């Protein structure tokens, strides 16, 4: 029983990390209707920049904001140079652009950072706790704490601030939002800033948790998180979080308990197809 709870907690932690990545995807899809595959490159960049700054300074307190800033810039660059010019074309055009950016970035990481797995030996500012015999490691605890903080902040921004309102209005109807004085271009860029910064945090968390930073660490999240936003309901932020948590728990329990001859990574897509068959608009999708 105790093992089950520990597995469950692991699963929730995985889910929390997925949600940090998936939220960025959901935000971008909501506002531009683009499947932002390159987001996974931003996530990986977060891990690399975080590691680099940490190695130089020895401080996570410096590394995290540095990574967030760098990734925000990267995200906006992709939006400005690739997506916005391609918006007038059919959707697969920016999608291919996104995939091309992602593949190119993977190569850049490999060439600049080396093809090896780098370790991220950061000390987390939490100590493990034990509740009734269930051990919760510092890593898991920090994932909970950090993701909760980030999610809360994001929730606050999206629902309570003017920017959040602008974001929601622009995703509904860009032109009408424009006539109401909303600067669509700025709002779109800010969306990328938020999503990318959050992904950077995810990258650092993963880097520390697994003690691994490598060029292709974004490959699996790139496509798995696409399935997750579909399951959650394209563009639905709560849906993205819900789907991520469910998958995190599902995957962890599946490896732990079931003996299905299909790899963990396909589960997301199988779940997606199952959900689409039952509820074509996704779990929390509208319309």
């Amino acid at each position, binding site marked *: 029983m105790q093992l089950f709870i520990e597995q469950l907690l692991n699963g929730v932690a995985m889910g929390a990390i997925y949600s940090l990545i998936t939220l960025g995807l959901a935000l971008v899809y909501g506002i531009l209707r683009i499947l932002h595959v390159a987001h996974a490159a931003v996530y990986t960049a977060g891990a690399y920049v975080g590691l680099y700054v940490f190695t130089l300074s020895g401080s996570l307190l410096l590394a995290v904001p540095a990574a967030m800033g760098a990734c925000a810039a990267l995200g906006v660059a992709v939006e400005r*140079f690739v997506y916005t010019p391609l918006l007038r074309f059919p959707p697969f055009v920016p999608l291919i652009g996104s995939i091309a950016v992602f*593949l190119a970035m993977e190569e850049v990481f490999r060439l600049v950072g080396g093809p090896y797995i780098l370790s991220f030996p950061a000390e987390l500012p939490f100590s493990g706790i034990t509740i009734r015999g269930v051990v919760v490691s510092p890593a898991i605890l920090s994932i909970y704490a950090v993701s909760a903080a980030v999610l809360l902040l994001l929730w606050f921004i999206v629902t309570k601030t003017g920017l959040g309102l602008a974001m929601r209005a622009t995703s509904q109807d860009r032109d009408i939002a424009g006539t109401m004085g909303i600067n669509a271009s700025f709002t779109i860029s800010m969306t990328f800033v938020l999503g990318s910064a959050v992904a950077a945090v995810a990258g650092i968390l993963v880097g520390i948790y697994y003690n691994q930073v490598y060029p292709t660490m974004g490959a699996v999240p790139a496509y798995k998180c696409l399935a997750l936003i579909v399951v959650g309901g394209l563009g639905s932020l709560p849906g993205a979080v819900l789907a991520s948590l469910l998958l995190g728990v599902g995957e962890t329990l599946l490896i732990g308990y079931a003996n299905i001859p*299909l790899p963990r990574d396909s589960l997301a897509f*199988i779940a997606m197809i199952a959900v689409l068959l039952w509820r074509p608009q996704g779990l929390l999708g509208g319309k």
Partner: protein
Amino acid sequence: MNDYSITILTFIAIQAIVACGLNVIVGYAGQISLGHAAFFGIGAYSSALLTTKAGLTFWAALPLVILITGSIGLVLGMPSLRLREDFLAVTTIGINFIVESVFLYVPFFGGALGLGGIPSITLLGTRLRGPKFLYLCLVLLGLVLLISRRFTKSWAGLACFALREEETAASSMGVSPIRFKLLAFVLGTAMAGMGGALYAHLMRFISATDFGFPLSITLMSMVVLGGIGTLWGPVIGALILGVLPEVFRPLIDYRMLLNAAILLLMIRFQPAGLLGEGSLLRRLFRRKGGTSNG
């Protein structure tokens, strides 16, 4: 021409066949498919199994391979093609991953070790290898191009073009969207299946990772590069993307980066492809009469 060049050209020819199939789906019917490599794999595995475990010759197996691949395309297409564009994109990615997993984990398909011992193709007593195999591929490529061309000239093709441009309007003119999208999808996947069969008998050994998502991206890149919806586009795309790695071979470390960069530049500045409308190439060789499909 040396053996190495012949092998490269054979690969290119096979990939061109598969890319032509993708062009029917994406270019003619306007449906996105990012999992086309899965059907390439289904064709390869079908032919491999039919010729090894069932003892058929390549020629006897080929019609079955096309039938099997097309049927699976039909079954997978029916629910998928009803989905909106973005859902369809992710679903096709999912199909690719799931099919690859099935090949990798279900023992019948050889699992991680793949399938080996695939016989070579014999025609009238001679084994087809090297240049002869290339000729076979070129002949079948020619066949695929002929079928594609014939398709664009048929009412079914016209219906697909109309669907691609304006689905609601096309539907109001009697074009059943699901029927014609499926038709294009089945045709496209069947072509991929045929390419897969050729691949299996060329390599004599196949494994699941040959047919993963990265290949789907490469195939899509070929179609985009050459010009979506043009007849020769996929062939040009396959040629360029097949030759490019060889050209960049000396820069071996930067090869992948250059490939990705070229794809990015292409899609960013010439999304219609080299042969597409308004492309640089077209404007250099200005022609009257419009595109091959309208």
